[in-house]
């Protein structure tokens, strides 16, 4: 046993064990750890936003840009100020201007981003040949079957989420195929998520046994 004498390792071990204590039951150590996490995360986020977003884009922009590139920054500065007007009740309505800008941005980017990033590429990727000529017959069957499954799975999953028509008759049959694919997808995603969480858990247990207690 080669226990660590680094006080920071002890702090990390205490916080790790505090969080893990929730597995026994909700207790004061977990609550303290949880609140420290919320408080420090909020401050961390604020520092991050300042150093990576607001300072380089607004403050440095004002200091180092010239001409129109400098003065145009008055608009986001004003919008930011308007956002903070929510604290002053008589003029709180001005904050709607900043909210309107962010909502407009979200909507504009929603259309362009979803079109370019999701809709068109996904549709394009689904236009697959239903027969693929492979190196041998077995390969041809395998590759063709994959493409057929991909097309059927995509279309039936879309039909499953199509609620403008009642799911009866052929629509019901197709949506039942869709739910089969969706179940496999959810199962696979679940398995993937569990693996990610388990690897985090292994990381924390390894920290306790190796970095803190020096047992392994």
């Amino acid at each position, binding site marked *: 046993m080669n226990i660590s004498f680094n006080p920071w390792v002890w*702090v*990390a071990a205490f*916080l790790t064990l505090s969080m*893990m204590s929730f*597995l026994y039951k909700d207790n004061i150590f977990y609550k303290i750890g*949880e609140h420290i*996490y919320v*408080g420090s*995360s*909020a401050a*961390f986020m*604020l*520092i*991050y936003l*300042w*150093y990576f977003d607001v300072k380089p884009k607004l403050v440095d922009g004002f200091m180092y840009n010239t001409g129109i590139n400098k003065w145009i920054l008055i608009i*986001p500065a004003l919008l*930011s100020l308007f*956002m*903070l007007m929510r604290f002053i009740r008589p003029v709180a309505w001005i904050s*709607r*201007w900043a*909210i*309107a*800008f962010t*909502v*407009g941005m*979200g*909507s*504009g980017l*929603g*259309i362009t981003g*979803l*079109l370019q990033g*999701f*809709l068109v590429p*996904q549709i394009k990727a*689904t236009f697959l040949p239903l027969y693929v000529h492979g190196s041998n017959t077995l390969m041809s069957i395998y590759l063709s079957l994959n493409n057929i*499954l*991909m097309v059927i*799975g995509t279309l039936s*999953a879309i039909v*499953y989420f199509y609620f403008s028509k009642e799911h009866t008759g052929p629509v019901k049959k197709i949506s039942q195929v*869709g739910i*089969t*694919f*969706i179940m*496999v*997808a959810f*199962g*696979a995603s*679940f398995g*993937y*998520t*569990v693996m990610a*969480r388990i690897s985090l*858990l292994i*990381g*924390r247990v390894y*920290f306790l046994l190796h970095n803190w207690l020096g047992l392994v």
Partner: protein
Amino acid sequence: MKREIPLFITFITGVLLVIALFVPHKPFGQLQQTFNDWLIIVGGFTMILGLDSLLLHNWEKIKRKKEGWISSAFLIASFFITLFWGFGEGAIAHRSPFDPSATFLRYFYTYVFVPLQATMFSLLAFFIASAAYRAFRAKDGNSTLLLSAAALVMLGRVPAGQEVAPWIFAFVLLLLAYYFFKEGSKTTGTQKTLYLIGALVSILLIYPVFYILLHYLNGIADWIMNIPQMAAKRGIWIGISLGGIAMSLRIILGVEKTYLQ
């Protein structure tokens, strides 16, 4: 005016971004990047609104000595310690707290932030396991599919899983055969024959399933992720995109105004 100006701002911002997609030349070409920068700046200030709410709520708890006020005190203390440490490092040492040599990154991030975050998320492994117990019982065809896909992906992604998976599935098939045999012995006629056929098929499947999983489990897990999983996700993504575009159009055209309330 209090409603019209925001609606106009939303309309102009949204329409300009859509125009920028189709006209990638000056002055529209750079508009998307410029607006994006502005959004990041405004978004940064929005954080202050959230912080105000968080801190005031916890301060009230401390002031009134409500239940859990000690935790709230820890929250406020950790907030200000982190804040002063981060900004202090920038002001005193004249370097970014995210610099690899910064004490903020070396001590706070490594020994406070990472343990808390990683442990918090790793706890989800236990809650997911308990949720899985409820959701994954093979009650019908769909939940059996869910269970099989999850098990194959989980076992197929780790070396140890690849070693034990053939034995697990062989054992499950053996149990299935036992179940069919037991149920078959309680019935008579055609039903009994069907149960016995089920038991026989389960026993006959043990060897091929064992062999396939022993040699091709990794490939099966990859195939599940790349074909059926991808197909269903693609359908979901297309649906989300269509819904998102329709909602964005409603907002830009002023049909959807709930964000102004």
